[in-house]
């Protein structure tokens, strides 16, 4: 197992990260997320949020820049970084012909988690997420909410230190959303770090310790909600108003 530096106070540190497709998607991004923090990354469509997170998780290779996860260089030692991370995308990718238990077994195997510990954890997670009654049914017939919850269970079964989620609440009903939020809060309380993108600003407002706002591939604002309000010159405003003001300011500055 890779040694994680106990002195590493940052769950994620990104420096000068850049990625272009036909045009720059991420443009010299600098971002730091302290360990044990719930961090929400906001931004208009095409801001580069998902591209950033996909580079952090090793799904995309950056053109330049550096990524460090709990002190592990994610570009030099991608396996070491992956060992302590989990990724949940907006479109949960499951195997229709596997049952939730088999899926969790598979994920636990990929992360080489001890079978006994994984079994107990899998049962707890399924119970927690309300999936126990479906533990032995194949995933093919699951609803979007059930699939998203199972993908989250897969992300948690190997007890990552950093959970990265891309729009995890898309298409979830209120009950499922509540369960996912509770699980994420519990993980943060347990010392985990969570980085999440969302377009549901209310979720970010309620859950995030800090919020980052991206536009055109750069971080245009970063801080606690009250700090963002101050920066936007919108004291007492909702996150939605603050977010729109910050994006408008950036647009005017450009």
């Amino acid at each position, binding site marked *: 197992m890779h040694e994680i530096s106990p002195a590493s106070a940052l769950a994620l540190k990104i420096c000068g990260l850049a990625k272009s497709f036909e045009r720059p998607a991420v443009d010299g991004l600098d971002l730091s997320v302290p360990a044990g923090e719930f961090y929400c990354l906001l931004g208009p469509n095409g801001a580069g949020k998902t591209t950033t997170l996909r580079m952090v998780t090793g799904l995309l290779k950056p053109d330049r820049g550096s990524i460090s996860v709990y002190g592990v260089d994610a570009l030099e030692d991608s396996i070491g970084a992956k060992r302590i991370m989990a990724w949940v995308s907006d479109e949960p990718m499951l195997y229709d*012909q596997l049952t939730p238990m*088999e899926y969790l*077994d598979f*994920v636990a195997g990929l*992360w080489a988690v001890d*079978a*006994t510990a994984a079994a107990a954890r899998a049962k707890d997670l399924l119970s927690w997420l309300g999936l126990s009654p479906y533990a*032995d049914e*194949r995933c093919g017939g699951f609803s979007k909410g059930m699939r998203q919850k199972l993908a989250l269970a897969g992300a948690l079964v190997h007890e990552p230190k950093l959970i990265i989620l891309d729009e995890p609440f898309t298409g979830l009903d209120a009950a499922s959303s509540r369960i996912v939020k509770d699980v994420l809060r519990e993980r943060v309380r347990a010392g985990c770090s969570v980085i999440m993108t969302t377009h549901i600003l209310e979720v970010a407002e309620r859950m995030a310790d800090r919020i980052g706002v991206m536009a055109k591939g750069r971080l245009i604002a970063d801080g606690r909600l009250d700090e963002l309000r101050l920066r936007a010159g919108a004291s007492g405003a909702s996150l939605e108003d603050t977010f729109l003001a910050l994006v408008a300011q950036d647009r005017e500055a450009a």
Partner: protein
Amino acid sequence: MSASGSLAWFAAHEARLAWRDWRWLMTRGRKDRAGAAALGFVAFVLFMHGVACMALSSSFRLAGPADAKALAVVAGSLALAFSAMLSQATELVTRAFYARGDLELILTSPAAAARLFAVRIAAIAATIFSMSLVFAAPFINVQAWLAGPQWLCAYLAAAALAMFAVACAVVIVGALFAVLGARRTRFVSQIVAAVIGAAFAIGLQFAAIISFGTMDAPRFAVLERLALDPDSALLWPARAVFGEPAPLAFMLGLGLAALFAVIGVYAPRFGGLVLTAGSQSNASKKSSPRQADLHSASPAQALRRKEWSLLLRDPWLMSQTLMQLLYLLPAAFLLWRSFFSGSGVANFLAPVLIMAAGQLAGGLAWLAVSGEDAPELIATAPVDAASVLRAKTEAVLVGVGVVFAPLVLMLAVASPLAALVSLAGVVVAAGSATAIQFWFRAQAKRCHFRRRQISSRLATFAEALSSNGWACAGAMAVAGAWLAVVPSVMVVAMLAGVWSISPAKATASS
């Protein structure tokens, strides 16, 4: 402009979708390719007419009256065409039942869905007719040019056959649905389609091989030997092709009546069947309870176990693979005839096993390597890419081993040499097919298995050449012919050539 929701409106909608699908297929969605696609189409049409010219001018022209020989040739062609049409139609009708696409939109709209389904059944008939024309039209045109315009009646006969085939297919799938239920129908109808499609062709090839030692040119002469009575009603479709008015009118009437009857009966029920199919395919299947039983040990073991579980639980994919194996039988039979006429069945089995192993490994390797439903999970797991590929290769080769090891063992009882050659052949054929799939891997969903041969024609071609080449080498080796080295070297050279132009080589070089 026709009224919304009318038959004509739905027909226009379907025609527009079909046209755009076809255009996309030809141009891959790029407008700048339209010219090249049109040129390619014209070149293909000219090429096919050239082939038809050579084929028809070098053999008998069927210029005279409908004698027994001519009728036998045409009847054989029609029987072959009908089995292919029925097979395709069965598959298309099944797909229409299970495809979600725009059906939810249609079924939740106030428009009369029965009209849409009437149009769709007719559209399937039009599709089958069009598909048959790709190969039939050049021969009909050339025959009309060489032997007289009455041969243009073959177009009408083909249309009648297409309508009748679709009517039969709807009845077959509807009956399967009623008897087996929605869940099993998809699987069984796939097999039925494969068997129908293969049965006549394979049967004819076997007969041709037995009679003439080849499976190509003289196959219809086999029909002559059946010595059908020239007045037999079985020859009416052939007479229709010759332009005889009564048989032609009968065929057209039969085709139209069957199609309209099926539309009348099934179009109003189609919506219900589609909904049943949809709800069944969404329903969860139970697996044996194993809540407290996790096996997690190593990433490689987890990957192998996952691949095996998915392979065993996907009957659709297995049926596709079985279908490939079915089509191999005549070629293997011919190999046996060519090299071992007079020898035992053990020698016959060696090339069959080698060819089948190559085909099976190719299919399984595609599923394991390219058909990954959760690529991001694998990519974000702390497992290096080489380990993932190694585990998937092991899963494929063990799968092939499980299928073929008992057969090779049984063969060893009859002929140790044939078993030894088969073992070596199975290993190299499976290894070659798996390697080709690795070189041409392209991320896709497992459910896209049926499209795998379209995504890389080069890989498909190389896979077939490799399997056949190793089978040929195996056949020669069992015969004790040192010439077995020749096809072996050719396959290795072909594999080297394919590797040199594969995407994997390009990636490795960059």
